[in-house]
C-alpha cells in the first residue's frame, strides 16, 4: 500500500515505463547501429567500414551531391517561401484565402505521389514533354538534378513559408514604424529592422529543410537515377540481393546521422545567438494592393498553389487512363487499373489500413500519455522523455528502418519479417507528430481543472480519465488523424523492413513505378489519397475540428 501512496505512483512509474519502452524501440536500435558501424565480421572493434567508404569515389561523390542538393533546395525554398509569406502576411489581394490550403497540401500529398506525378508530366514520356516535342521544343531530361531540385523545392518550400508566416504575424509593426519615423527610407527600414528579426525564423526552417533533403529517399530514388545520393546509396547497400554488408550499411547510416547532427547543432546556435526578445505586438494590417499589382500577386500565389496541387489531379487522371502494359494511352479512359488493384492485388490496400490503424492506436495512446507527463507532470525524467520522443524526427526513414531490422532480426524478440516490424516503423517514425499535436492543446488546459477533481477526492489516475481525457478529446482526434495520414504515406523506413506479403500502398506504388507501370501506381495512389482525405474531411465536417490550426 505504501508503494501506491508514494509520490512515484502513478506518474513517476508511468514515466519510467514510457522511458523503458522508448529506450528499447528507439535508443537501443540506434545503439546497435552505431556499434555495428565500428565492428568487423569477427565482432572486433574496427574502423574498416569508414575507411572503405572514404576510399570509395562513388561514396564521396554521393556525399558531395547530397550536400549540393540540400543547399540548392534550401536556397530555392527560401526564395519561394519567404516572398510568399511576406505577400500573404502584408497584403490583401483576390483569392488570397486559397493559401490556407497550403499546409494541408504538404501533409496530405505523399512524396511518392509528387515524384510520380511529375514524372507523368515532365518525364521523358510525360504529357508536357510529349506535347512540347510535337511543337518542336525539346525539354531537358527531368531525371537527375532538374527533377530532384524542382520536385523537392515544391515539397519543402511550405516549411519555410509556414515558419516565416508565423514569425511575420508575431512581428510588432511599431518597430517598423519607429524606423520610418526616424527618417529611414522604407527599404532601409525593412533591411535593418525586419530582416534581422525574421532571420532566425528563416534560418531555423531552412536548416529543417536541409536536413529533410539529406534524409529524403523517396524523391531521390524516383528521380535521381544518374545522381548518386547518400540516402539511395544506403538503401541500395541494404537491399543488395545476396545480403549487403551490415558494416557498410551502418557506417553510411552513421555518416548521414552525423550530417543531420551537425545541422541541428548549427540550428541551435543560430537560435541562441540571434534571439531578440520582442514584446509581442500587433502585426501591421495587410495592405490592399491595386489592380495591376493585385493581378501579379494573385498570379504568383495561384501559380505556386497550382503546382502544389497538380500532383493530386494528375494521379487521378492517370488512375483512370487506359494502359497497354507500361505504355499510357492518354485521353483514353478506362477503369481497368482501378479494378485491377481491387480485384487482383488488394493486399497492399488491406495491409496499409491494418498497419496504420494499429500504429495510430498505439501512437495516440502513447502520445497522450507522454505529452501529459511532459507538460503536466514534470519530474526529473520527463525532459529526457521529451528528447527521446522527438528524436526520430531527426533520423531519416532509411536509417531508422535499417536500425530496426539490424536490431530485431535476432535475439529473444524477432520482429523482422512480421507485420509487427511494419507497425513498429510507423509508430516510431510518426510518434513525434502525435506528441506535438497532443502537447500543444495540453498547454492551454489550466491545471486547476484537474486539481479541483483531485481535491474533491478523486484519485489522480481517475481524474486523468474522467477530467483530462474528455477535455483533450478534440486534440486526441486530431493527433490520431495526423498520425494516420502520415503513417499511410510512410515509405522510406517500411521499404527497408518489408518482406513479401507485407506490401503497403506506398511500397506497391514504388514497385509499380520501378516495374514501369505508372497506371497501376496511380491507381494505388488514388486509393491512398482517398483513405488519407476521408478522415480529414470527416473530422472537419463531423467533429468541426480545425486540424491544421497549429500546423
Amino acid at each position: 500500500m505504501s508503494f501506491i501512496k508514494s509520490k512515484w505512483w502513478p506518474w513517476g512509474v508511468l514515466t519510467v515505463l514510457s522511458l523503458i519502452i522508448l529506450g528499447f524501440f528507439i535508443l537501443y536500435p540506434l545503439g546497435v547501429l552505431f556499434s555495428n558501424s565500428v565492428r568487423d565480421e569477427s565482432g572486433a572493434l574496427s574502423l574498416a567500414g569508414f575507411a572503405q567508404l572514404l576510399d570509395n569515389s562513388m561514396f564521396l561523390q554521393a556525399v558531395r551531391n547530397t550536400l549540393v542538393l540540400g543547399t540548392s533546395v534550401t536556397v530555392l525554398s527560401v526564395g519561394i517561401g519567404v516572398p510568399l509569406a511576406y505577400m500573404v502576411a502584408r497584403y490583401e489581394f483576390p483569392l488570397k484565402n486559397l493559401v490556407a490550403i497550403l499546409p494541408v497540401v504538404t501533409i496530405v500529398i505523399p512524396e511518392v505521389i509528387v515524384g510520380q506525378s511529375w514524372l507523368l508530366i515532365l518525364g521523358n514520356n510525360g504529357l508536357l514533354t510529349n506535347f512540347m516535342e510535337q511543337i518542336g521544343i525539346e525539354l531537358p531530361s527531368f531525371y537527375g538534378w532538374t527533377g530532384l531540385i524542382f520536385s523537392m523545392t515544391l515539397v519543402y518550400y511550405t516549411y519555410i513559408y509556414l515558419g516565416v508566416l508565423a514569425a511575420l504575424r508575431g512581428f510588432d509593426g511599431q518597430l517598423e514604424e519607429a524606423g520610418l519615423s526616424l527618417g529611414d527610407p522604407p527599404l532601409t527600414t525593412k533591411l535593418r529592422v525586419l530582416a534581422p528579426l525574421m532571420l532566425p525564423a528563416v534560418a531555423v526552417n531552412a536548416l529543417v529543410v536541409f536536413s529533410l533533403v539529406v534524409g529524403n529517399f523517396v524523391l531521390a530514388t524516383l528521380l535521381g537515377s544518374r545522381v548518386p545520393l547518400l540516402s539511395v546509396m544506403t538503401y541500395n547497400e541494404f537491399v543488395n540481393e545476396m545480403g549487403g554488408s551490415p558494416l557498410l550499411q551502418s557506417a553510411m547510416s552513421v555518416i548521414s546521422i552525423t550530417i543531420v547532427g551537425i545541422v541541428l547543432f548549427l540550428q541551435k546556435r543560430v537560435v541562441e545567438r540571434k534571439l531578440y526578445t520582442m514584446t509581442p505586438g500587433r502585426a501591421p494590417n495587410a495592405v490592399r494592393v491595386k489592380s495591376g499589382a493585385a493581378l501579379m500577386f494573385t498570379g504568383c500565389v495561384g501559380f505556386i498553389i497550382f503546382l502544389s496541387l497538380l500532383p493530386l489531379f494528375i494521379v487521378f487522371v492517370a488512375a483512370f487512363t487506359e494502359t497497354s502494359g507500361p505504355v499510357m494511352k492518354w485521353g483514353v479512359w478506362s477503369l481497368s487499373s482501378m479494378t485491377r488493384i481491387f480485384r487482383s492485388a488488394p493486399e497492399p490496400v488491406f495491409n496499409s489500413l491494418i498497419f496504420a490503424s494499429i500504429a495510430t492506436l498505439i501512437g495516440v495512446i502513447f502520445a497522450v500519455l507522454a505529452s501529459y507527463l511532459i507538460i503536466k507532470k514534470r519530474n526529473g525524467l520527463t525532459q529526457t522523455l521529451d528528447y527521446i520522443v522527438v528524436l526520430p524526427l531527426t533520423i531519416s526513414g532509411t536509417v531508422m528502418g535499417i536500425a530496426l531490422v539490424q536490431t530485431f532480426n535476432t535475439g529473444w524478440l524477432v520482429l523482422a519479417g512480421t507485420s509487427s516490424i511494419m507497425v513498429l516503423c510507423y509508430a516510431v517514425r510518426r510518434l513525434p507528430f502525435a506528441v506535438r499535436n497532443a502537447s500543444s492543446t495540453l498547454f492551454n488546459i489550466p491545471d486547476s481543472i484537474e486539481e479541483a477533481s483531485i481535491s474533491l477526492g478523486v484519485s489522480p489516475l481517475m481524474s486523468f480519465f474522467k477530467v483530462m481525457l474528455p477535455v483533450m478529446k478534440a486534440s486526441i482526434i486530431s493527433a490520431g488523424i495526423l498520425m494516420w495520414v502520415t503513417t499511410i504515406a510512410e515509405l522510406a523506413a517500411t521499404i527497408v523492413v518489408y518482406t513479401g506479403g507485407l506490401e503497403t500502398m506506398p511500397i506497391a506504388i514504388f514497385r509499380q513505378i520501378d516495374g514501369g507501370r505508372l497506371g497501376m501506381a496511380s491507381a494505388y495512389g488514388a486509393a491512398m489519397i482517398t483513405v488519407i482525405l476521408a478522415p480529414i474531411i470527416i473530422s472537419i465536417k463531423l467533429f468541426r475540428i480545425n486540424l491544421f490550426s497549429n500546423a
Partner: protein
Amino acid sequence: MKMKLKFLPQIAATLMFSAMATLASAQTVVLYSSNNTETIEAALNVTKKKNASLNVQQVTGGTGALMKRIQAEAQNPRGDILWSGGFGTLGAYKEYMEPYKSPDLAAIPEEFRGPDNLWVGTNVHLMVIMVNEKQLKGLPVPTTWSDFMKPEWKGKFAITDPSKSATAYLLVYGLLKQFGRDGLEKIAANAVVTSSSGTTYKGTAMGEYPVGLTIEYAAQEYVAGGQKEIRLVYPGEGSYLAPEGMFIVKGAKNAEAARAFYNILLSREMQQELLVKSFRRPVRSDIEVSKLTPLPDLKSVKIFPLDQAAASEEYEQLVSLWNLAVNKAK
C-alpha cells in the same frame, strides 16, 4: 504494448484470411510471387478455367524478399509455392524446397529443369539490346555486344548493376565468359550503371538512354504498347538465357493443392497465355513463339551457352570484379 505490437497484426490478418478461406469451400494454395500484377492476374484466370475449385491466395514481393520470408518461415511454412526466381537464386535456397516430379516434365528440355526435381523452369528470359531509335542521334544501330566497347558509345547505354538484379547478373557473367576481363572492363567503362532492371528498360523506353541491355519481355512490352521507336536487337555474338523457375515449399501446408497449381502453371495453355499476354518466353518445347507473337523462336536466335550453376557460384568474384571495373572508369 509489446504484446500488442507483436500479435495484433497477425490476429487481424488471420481473421481476414480465415474469413476469405471459409468463403471458398475448395482447396486453398498460398502463392508467393514476384511476377507483376498483370502476369499473376493472367495466370489466375487460366487457373480458374482449368480448375475452378482451386483458391489461390497471393503474397507478392521481390524474389529476394520472398526467399528471405520462406527462409524465416522454414519451421512453420505459410507459403506453398514460389513462382518465380532466377535459377541462380533458386540454387542458393535448395534446402527449403520440396522435390516434385510433374507429369508435364516431359515437355520441358533438360536444361530448364532443376537438380533432383527441386524446381522446374517456367519461363526463360533472353538478354537483348533494347534500342530507342529516336535517341540514337546519328549513332548506328548496335548489332553486337562488342559494339559497346567502342568509345563512341560512352555514356550512351544503360546496364543494370549485377548485384541488384538476377538477370543483369547473368548478362554481366555472360559478357565476362564471352569477352574476358578485358572486354568486360571496356564495356563497364562506357556504361551508365543503373540500380534496378526497371530503371534500365524504363529509361530506354523514355529516352533517358538511347540503348539498354535488358530483358526481352520488358522491351517487347513497349513495342506492343505502340512505341514505334523501340527496337529489339539480338546480338550477333549470341544472346544469354536467364531461365526462371518455381518450386514447392518444403513442408507446405497445402501440398496437394500446390502440386495441382504447379501442374497448371507448367501446362501448355498457361504458358501460351503468359507468352501472349506478358511475353514470357515459355520453357516448353511444344509452343511456337513466332506464330503467337512477333518474337522469334528460340531456335532461330543465336545463344551463347552459360552454366547457370557455375554462374551463381562465382557471384562474389564477379560482383567485385565488376565494381572494380566501374570504379576504375570513374
